[in-house]
């Protein structure tokens, strides 16, 4: 998909920003470039859409040398998202989203349709289309910034610290949303960041750079487990090496497999007896295909047993669930922050796969403390 061949960038003042860089990126791969400032990560990215010219070597996109293509055409064929967001303040959200479509002279109907379609992807209501960027919050603006990059459905998207300027909570949810989106749409992503958490969370492959050279390029798991040298170790931070395990453990590995469920058409009476038999105070509700529909707890039954018959009449449909392959680190964080008693685990099709409860977490913390001989102080610090 994308290939760097002996790419070198020298600036006119004599500094070498990128030295003889070689890298191959596959279609659908999410690659994070990371390193201290001045390491050449942004330069590397900007050479791909020719915002910066290559001094030596070549970059191939789909086996075609980018130098042989018209720079403007090339940029229109790639998505581009930057930290400063850069929405056009004088254009409506709709005009902003389909800007590249406008440059490519798409007909109006096609643009309108595409804008609505994209806005749905991030669950924003349609009346945002006619607003102006300054009426949106920072997080919403960057959502639009991401949509704008997706507008003409480019296979490759370049992102320059896109979530760097957002507050931590917004950043968290945008990262989540974006990772999901990327999996759905199967885009190839080149993502520049200086935030290790972000890189480990999002990337399929993390490329660590220093002084214009690649120090290590590997999966997040391998980087945490086998840092190539001291620089990488230091860059990862000691904390992360200690927490190495939860860093790369997925939810699937620790979840409990058979949560207590009832199907949507169960009567409340039989639901309450299931609760009693299993000694639980709430039940997950699934349909006949094991797709998670909601949950029902003892309070809901108590309030409604006279009015309603079936579980699906009273169940709560807003369930917070996590994907089986998401990282445990993030999940633990969320369970603790939301004060949830348990989190159902689902696969891509929202089929119920298991459950993580607070008791599961107790096991995990027990293992960490007693199993690995880690000192209590460290856990306390990590828990904060």
């Amino acid at each position, binding site marked *: 998909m994308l290939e760097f061949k002996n790419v070198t960038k020298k600036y006119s003042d004599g500094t070498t920003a990128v030295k003889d860089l070689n890298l191959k990126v596959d279609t659908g791969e999410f690659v994070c470039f990371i390193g201290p400032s001045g390491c050449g990560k942004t330069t590397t990215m900007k050479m791909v*859409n020719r*915002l910066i010219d290559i001094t030596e070597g070549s970059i191939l996109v789909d086996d075609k040398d980018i130098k042989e293509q018209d720079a*403007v*055409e*090339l*940029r*229109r*064929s790639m998505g*581009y998202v*930057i*930290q*400063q*967001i*850069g*929405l*056009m*303040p*004088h*254009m*409506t959200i709709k005009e902003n989203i389909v*800007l*590249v479509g406008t*440059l490519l002279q798409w007909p109006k109907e096609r643009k309108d349709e595409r804008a609505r379609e994209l806005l749905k992807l991030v669950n924003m209501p349609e009346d945002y289309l006619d607003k*102006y*960027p*300054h*009426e949106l919050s920072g997080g919403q603006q960057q959502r639009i*910034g991401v949509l*704008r*990059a997706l507008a003409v459905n480019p296979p490759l998207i*370049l992102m320059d610290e896109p979530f760097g300027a957002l507050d931590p909570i917004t950043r968290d949810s945008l990262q989540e949303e974006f990772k999901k989106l990327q999996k759905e749409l199967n885009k190839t992503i080149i993502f520049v960041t200086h935030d290790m958490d972000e890189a480990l969370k999002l990337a399929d492959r993390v490329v660590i750079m220093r002084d214009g050279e690649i120090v290590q390029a590997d999966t997040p798991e391998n980087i945490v487990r086998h840092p190539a040298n001291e620089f990488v170790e230091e860059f990862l931070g000691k904390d992360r090496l200690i927490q190495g395990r939860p860093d790369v453990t997925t939810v699937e590995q620790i979840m409990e497999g058979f949560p207590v469920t009832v199907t949507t058409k169960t009567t409340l009476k039989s639901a309450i007896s299931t609760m009693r038999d299993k000694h639980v105070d709430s039940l997950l509700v699934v349909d006949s295909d094991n797709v998670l529909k909601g949950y029902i707890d003892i309070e809901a039954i108590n309030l409604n047993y006279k009015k309603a018959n079936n579980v699906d009449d009273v169940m709560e449909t807003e369930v917070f669930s996590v994907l089986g392959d998401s990282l445990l680190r993030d999940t633990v964080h969320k369970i603790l922050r939301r004060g949830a008693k348990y989190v159902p685990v689902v696969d891509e099709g929202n089929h119920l796969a298991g459950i993580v409860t607070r008791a599961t977490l107790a096991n995990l913390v027990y293992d960490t403390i007693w199993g690995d001989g880690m000192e209590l102080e460290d856990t306390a610090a990590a828990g904060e």
Partner: protein
Amino acid sequence: MMEFFAENGNELLFKTWEHFYISLVAIVLGVIVAVPLGVLLSRVPKFADRFISFIGVLQTIPSLAILAFFIPIVGIGKIPAILALFFYSLLPILRNTYIGVRDVDRGVVEAGRGMGMSNWQSIISMELPLSIPVIMAGIRLSTVYLIGWAALAAFIGGGGLGDFIFDGLNLYQPSLILAGTIPATILAVIADRSLALLENKLTPEGLKDSYETA
């Protein structure tokens, strides 16, 4: 008062028109030259600062002297007057265009370029609309100055309300001086207000709100 109007009314109207016409032609020429030049300068920022200070120095030459210098080159009458005024209109418009375009949010410009806007598209659909308020401020400033300076046109036979003022000075008739000054002032105020309306019309919808709230 009534007597003065009865006697000079027609001439007053004509001179006001002449005054207006000289200023208008000069300012339109100024906009036509200075706005594109300002945009061009924003592409070569290193050169731009030097160039603008150079123009600034040229403009410190007293206007009367400029008019005098122009006589051997272009003679007397309306054209040299318009030329001289045009010359004075350049700096404020040029500087404001340059600064306006230069100060358009770098993030926005980079996003535009990164998404595949050509240089021309970037200027027309992004940089100019976003710098309209600053450019218009330069044009308004220039216009108001120019209407004042246009009185000097009379000095080289360009006509306009300056004729009244010079006659008044020569004949010791304050009423004539006022007859030249007051219409010129009114003209300047009207021009400024109309340009404010124009500015409001040209400023893109999305920018207005943010300016109001800011």
